[in-house]
């Protein structure tokens, strides 16, 4: 955190990464299937768990990239 920098910052291109979770979850045909299973867990379920991780990871990346 730098000092009292009051200049409005320009919107960053990094924020576009945050669209990935929206596309990945809102387009249901991507993941509404049983196969491929992972340790007996249907794709529908482990894919969405994976998206939680991806969403958090991308948010962290954008945080560090735009944290000035």
């Amino acid at each position, binding site marked *: *955190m730098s000092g*009292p*920098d*009051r*200049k*409005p*910052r320009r919107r960053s291109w990094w*924020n576009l990464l*945050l*669209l990935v*979770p*929206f596309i990945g*979850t*809102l*387009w*249901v*045909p991507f993941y*509404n*299937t*049983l196969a491929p*299973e992972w*340790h*007996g*867990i*249907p794709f*529908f*379920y482990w894919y*969405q*768990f994976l*998206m*939680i*991780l991806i*969403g*958090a990871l*991308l*948010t*962290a990346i*954008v*945080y560090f990239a735009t*944290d000035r």
Partner: protein
Amino acid sequence: MAIDWVALSVFIGLFGFITILGFVAGRWRRGDLDLLHEWGLAGGRFGTVVTWFLLGGDLYTAYTFIAVPALVFGQGAIGFFGVPYTILIYPFVFVVFPRLWSVARRHGYITAADFVRGRFGNRWLALAIAVTGLVATMPYIALQLVGLQVVIAAMGVEGTGLVGDLPLIIAFVILAAFTYTSGLRAPAMIAVVKDVLIWVVVIAAVVLIPAQLGGYAKIFAAIPESKLILAPPDGNSLGGYSGYASLALASALALFLYPHSVTGVLSSSGRHVIRRNAAMLPAYSFLLGMIALLGYMAVAAGVDHNPEFAAGFSHYKANFAVPALFRQSFPSWFVGIAFAAIGIGALVPAAIMSIAAANLWTRNIYREFIHSACSLKQEAHMAKLVSLVVKVGALFFIIFLPQEYAIQLQLLGGIWMLQILPAVVFGLYTRRLHPWALLIGWAIGIGSGTWMAATLDFKSSMYPLVIHGFTIKAYAALYALSLNIAVSAILSPVLTLLRVPSGQDETVEADYHERGMPLPEEIASAPLA
């Protein structure tokens, strides 16, 4: 079902512990509790770690822990929408809410309606925002009691009439007392205990229960395939797809418009706290996903065929699935811990919701319309009283009215809450929308959303929109929001052209980037000190 004394003792012990904690919390990072922003926002001093616990405790409520797995238990894949829902919340919060924090810190706003009042200079629009928040929050508080009621019943504590409701009343008196004396500091401190308990219970559950049932493959094999995934689109409709995606999106957009979320955001000590938490809170989404899977475990374990739980299921329906699963799978002492986690999980959000409702009433209705000359001390006193009134109201609601009413109202509340998005979220970026256009858009959104729910007898919020014989069944909140935005956008230039006064904007662009001066406490102390 006989009373499980071991579980009950553990439960009561943990409740006693958090009661003491709730009263001690008033002295934590001491502030003048006669000031509304100290009582109702804890002075805006919470760092990254406390905010993580607070928001986790605030957003993932007891009702969530009971209702989400209940939906999966009863209806399968659609109940899993809570996962994409909570995935989408955080990127949205990451981008939008630091702006709200900044402008609020700059101007001393403590509610979303405060911001709208300052931004658009229109008290009627601000009133609409405040009333929406109040009305949507009340049934939500009442529903927390349902979570509490279910676990108390699952320990075998039963009675008829007022005696049966006694445990609930005691829990709520405790809640009301520590909220009154300690303000937001109480739920913040208790949230740490609640979250730790929930994590322990859920991790134990997703390891131990599948081991008892023969592994995850066996659990999923016990569920009919048609329930495991959503119905695919056919020639006449989008099947289950539009419902699932619209529920996830609209719920995600609405969640941080709720007063209790705004309170959580504004109590943090900086923009970076919110941004960091957007990356860290998804841990709770993982937790929620695991909790959702408990619904399938309950099916595989056959809890609904266990005669011991027949009475519970006939009274609480699918909401009894998780309590029954815990009782069937865990030793008594751990059942006590698990139920205490859910019970305390009811008190934390209920406390924050009642504080948020009190802030709204006091700032945006009482001070704005009734007693504009009230002193700071009177303001804080008013808020404390209202937090009591709100909780007593919720208690009456649950004791004297059918539970269905609370569920239906909460469902409507979700639809209504989303209708403040144009004023609050678009308002954070632009002043081009006319306040009266926003107010009319809001009214159309509320009206159409309510009408859609009414055509479904208030039993569902999935409205089947038919276009040329093709059915798109989607969350009514999203349809209503589309109308709301369209009306606001079309009317804004018209009203400007007609020279309808558009109100004074007391904010400037730089306010939305304000970083805020670090508070001395923040530098001097570790997050939990």
